[in-house]
């Protein structure tokens, strides 16, 4: 694994490997010294062409816990506002010796472009591109769900998947890279996903996605769910009239106090409420729901650091030397067994 661009091409075994590694990374947070030397001397660049709080801070915390050097780059206040292209920015970073680039870009596909070209020879992690994918968010959501799901089953989460878990993802699916990444990943891990949204906020071709689609949140809740993920109404991308008023949206597709009570009435005491943040309280999620014991919003943020540590570690800790023909092979051969202590 050199890049983490999408959850669509992430195999089940690789996904579980990332989640298992994240489980070990999470344990570091409970230690006296909350730092590991694994990525000492490596440079991670946070390349953010779009605003972000938790993703950027989360990646920064993750890289620092692994002892990597972090360079933060925000498009605002940089040469990008003077018109520098992605290629030139990438080549500049490459010349400075970046080992990994964490990129968020408003254009869907920008991280793929970076990974596919020879502009920069570094691992690329997609931290959200346009309305396309946000794989680490999906991984941290899956991590949060897996912990919950295996606690209910009374087993350890190591090596487990999400078989049989019913997940509803509700809200602005059209603009949501979180929803896309989650649909692919949760399907790979064996969960049943239902997207709930007004028809205007569903993308064309959604019927081909590996999930069910519903226009009615109440019906979906009554059908039984184990996790409800509310998506943010993305005000900055609302360039057309997707719904009449925010009050109507909130009443029909928001997770309000009535729906919170209905979970209790329906006897779903173990259903969790998730939100990728930032929340529009009172719009897609009510304050009571966001602060209820069912809410995993803060767990998701905490788990985000562990999952991003796992992704950075797995991407960056491989063999970095120039591929030498025979000696490297012999070296790898002897090290594949435990006897070279």
């Amino acid at each position, binding site marked *: 694994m050199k890049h983490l661009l999408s959850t669509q091409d992430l195999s089940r075994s690789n996904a579980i490997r990332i989640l298992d590694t994240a489980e070990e990374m999470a344990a570091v947070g409970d230690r*006296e010294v909350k730092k590991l030397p694994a990525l000492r001397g490596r440079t991670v660049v946070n390349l953010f062409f779009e605003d972000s709080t938790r993703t950027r801070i989360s990646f920064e915390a993750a890289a620092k816990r692994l002892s990597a050097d972090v360079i933060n780059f925000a498009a605002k206040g940089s040469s990008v506002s003077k018109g520098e292209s992605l290629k030139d920015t990438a080549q500049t970073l490459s010349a400075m010796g970046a080992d990994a680039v964490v990129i968020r870009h408003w254009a869907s596909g920008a991280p793929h472009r970076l990974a596919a070209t020879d502009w920069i020879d570094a691992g690329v992690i997609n931290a959200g591109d346009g309305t396309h994918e946000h794989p680490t968010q999906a991984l941290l959501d899956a991590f949060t769900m897996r912990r919950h799901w295996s606690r209910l089953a009374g087993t350890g989460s190591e090596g487990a998947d999400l078989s049989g878990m019913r997940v509803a993802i509700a809200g602005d699916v059209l603009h949501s890279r979180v929803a896309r990444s989650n649909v692919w990943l949760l399907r790979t891990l064996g969960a049943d996903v239902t997207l709930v949204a007004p028809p205007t906020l569903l993308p064309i071709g959604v019927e081909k996605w590996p999930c069910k689609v519903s226009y009615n949140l109440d019906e979906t809740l009554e059908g039984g769910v184990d996790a409800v993920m509310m998506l943010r109404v993305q005000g900055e991308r609302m360039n057309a009239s997707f719904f009449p008023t925010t009050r109507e949206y909130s009443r029909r597709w928001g997770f309000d106090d009535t729906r919170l009570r209905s979970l209790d009435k329906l006897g779903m005491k173990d259903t969790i409420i998730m939100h990728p943040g930032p929340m529009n309280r009172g719009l897609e999620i009510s304050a009571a729901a966001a602060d209820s014991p069912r809410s995993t919003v803060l767990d998701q943020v905490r788990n985000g650091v562990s999952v991003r540590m796992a992704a950075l570690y797995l991407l960056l800790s491989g*063999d970095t030397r120039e591929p030498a023909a025979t000696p490297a092979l012999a070296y790898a051969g002897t090290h594949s067994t435990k*006897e070279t202590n």
Partner: protein
Amino acid sequence: MTSVTSAPVPARVVLSQADIDRALTRIAHEILEANKGSQDLVLLGIPRRGYPLAVRLAEKIAAADNTVDAAAIVGQLDVTMFRDDLSHQGTRPPYPTKLPRTGIDNKVVVLIDDVLYSGRTIRAALDALIDLGRPRIVRLAVLIDRGHRELPIRADHVGKNLPTSSAEKVRVRLEETDTPAGGTPVNEVVIEGGS
């Protein structure tokens, strides 16, 4: 030693199941003797095969000293993230680190591994240990010491000293970690001749 170029040299068993068991019994008593009892003792196995060895040693210590609860003194210490060769080989997924409930502060920690070779795993283990707490004493017990040290590290308790050439491979197989699915459990140490 003559070097053979054609046919692969067959594996030679150097420790049988009974040999491993006797060596562990002796090490268990040596640990108790060096510590003058079971006071403050914590056994930390290094994954993968150090951990089952630590469990076996703890059981033997508990059998010799009935005040000891074997499960309460055993732990596992993962050293993956502390290795100095992380950027020189394929990615290793980390194993869990599990400490006994009492922690390791002011304890006598005995690190346990299967084979002591370059000493680099133990160097990593010492670094990992320091990040977890401050033991009073750290000792090292290994089943096999095969020489070829690259660092100034030695074991306090050794099951068997095994002079080897660095072309040879020492393989420890334990029933806890190396039983193939549906296969028969095996406990042995073999040397596979230089390739």
